[in-house]
């Protein structure tokens, strides 16, 4: 079939209105899907169940089918170990993978404070070094529809902490 516009350009025009491709969009995508995030998605760390879990909590996003469960082993108010299982998009999986590493050895109070910093980073888009590797997720800020993906593992983690050993 002949085409009415040059094929393969991905768009007819730069466009000015809602939804049209925007300048710097590729930079935004590059920030969203940076190597570190895709690496955690491809080779997830801390994925699996935890035999000695003191708390396990699952959260689902019914809209996209993302499903994550976090198991924690908490002793004396410290997260000794955390593991996750789940299916979902790269943002959710990478967040979960990085998050399990971040909270290892931290007190539950520290984890809760970090959760607030993570929310603030998603709101502002400014990377926060206190979040360790998770600062790579600052790029999610520009994609409102994806905030939920990055927050899901946090919700599961906080739920697991609340459930046992907190």
């Amino acid at each position: 079939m002949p085409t009415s516009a040059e094929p393969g350009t991905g768009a007819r025009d730069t466009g000015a209105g809602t939804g049209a491709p925007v300048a710097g969009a590729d930079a935004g995508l590059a920030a969203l899907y940076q190597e570190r995030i895709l690496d955690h998605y491809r080779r997830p760390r801390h994925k699996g169940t935890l035999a000695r879990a003191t708390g396990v909590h699952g959260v689902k996003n019914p809209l996209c089918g993302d499903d994550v469960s976090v198991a924690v082993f908490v002793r004396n108010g410290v997260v000794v170990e955390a593991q996750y299982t789940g299916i979902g998009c790269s943002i959710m999986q990478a967040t979960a993978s990085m998050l399990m590493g971040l909270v290892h050895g931290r007190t539950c109070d520290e984890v809760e404070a970090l959760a607030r910093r993570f929310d603030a980073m998603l709101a502002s888009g400014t990377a926060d070094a206190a979040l360790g590797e998770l600062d790579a997720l600052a790029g999610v800020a520009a994609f409102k529809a994806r905030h939920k993906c990055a927050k899901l593992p946090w919700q599961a983690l906080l739920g697991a902490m609340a459930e046992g050993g907190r």
Partner: protein
Amino acid sequence: MSAAGAGLRDVRPDFPLLVSNPGLVYLDSAATSQKPHAVLDAIRDYYGTANANPHRGAYKLSGAATDAYHGARSEIARFLGAADADALIFTRGTTESMNLLATAWGLTHVHRGDRVVVTRLEHHANFVTWQQLARTVGAEFRICELTPDGQVDLDQLRLLVTANTKVVAFGHVSNALGTINNVREIVKIAHAIGAVAFCDGAQGAPHLRVGFDELGVDAYAFSGHKMLGPMGIGGVIVRRALLDTMHPYQFGGDMIEFVFDGDSTWNVLPHKFEAGTPNVEGAVGLAAAVKYLDALGMDAVRAHEVALTRYAMEQLATIEGMHLYGPAAAEARSGVVSFTLGDIHPHDLSTMLDVDGICVRAGHHCAQPLMRALHVTSTVRASFYVYNTAADVDALVASLRKAQVRFHAHVG
């Protein structure tokens, strides 16, 4: 294929949102369609010339509003092939229409021990309504499964529709896969044992010539916003004999005849099922939409969509890792292509497409039971309508290839 497609002129200039967003590639018409000037103008004209509360006033202006409302009903009934315009009940859309049927018909006619049958293709509006009716009255709720090709398994349906079956509720066209169901055969199976056949036409009416009077279904529900009309208007055409056996759905103004202290009597059709001040602007807007579709010609609309769907399926299939769901033949679908690409999650894909100005749906398409049967949690769905062109398909394919490179560049 040219922008005009198989006999359809280039209609993009008729759609203000597409004109003001020339870079936009809108491939989500199965969720909601864009609206032509004709629809926006009709709504503006109604408020500018004829706005009053219909049926209420003895003054001329109220008469004009009444005429506008019922003129719209006649126009839409004609478009859908129903001679009896007063058997077309306006609702907010297909969801409310199915709720109306499940409540006003279902609670009267379905009893403990009866059976209610739906299909695996149904979206939630035509699934949960009947599931909950069955739970309420203590009836059996059965789901007809699909063939590997994504069609309703008619052999299984024949076995499922037993003597105690009261209703078979099914979609004309699947919103998730685009499958066009064999309506006449399903009706035959239902009617053979005296069950009613209710058709959810949310994805049918926008794309296919409905021909209600010949179709044989007992009710046909539709949504205006998926067929170029405004949001918040739709309806259901019900066989009059059935409507006469139905209890009112909602109570209030317009639907009553006489109200006494102890009881009330009901107005004639269609008013009996339309309580309260109606959505006149919606009805007028939808009437303008069906006139617009009529002027294009539904056969030309269909031919355009089949050509575009075939082109999309061919082009998408050239991408490595592409998995297409649903019927293999473009003719067996409305303008819907549902797919997954390798191990890239549909939400990641839709974000990357969005950056290129491409709007697709990613998710379960309000059909979770179907997604479970397909063993996927979600798919990407591109859906086409009159304003889409081969260039839109090319943009989609190019953006998907880009996404694939981005996703796999960093991993060995």
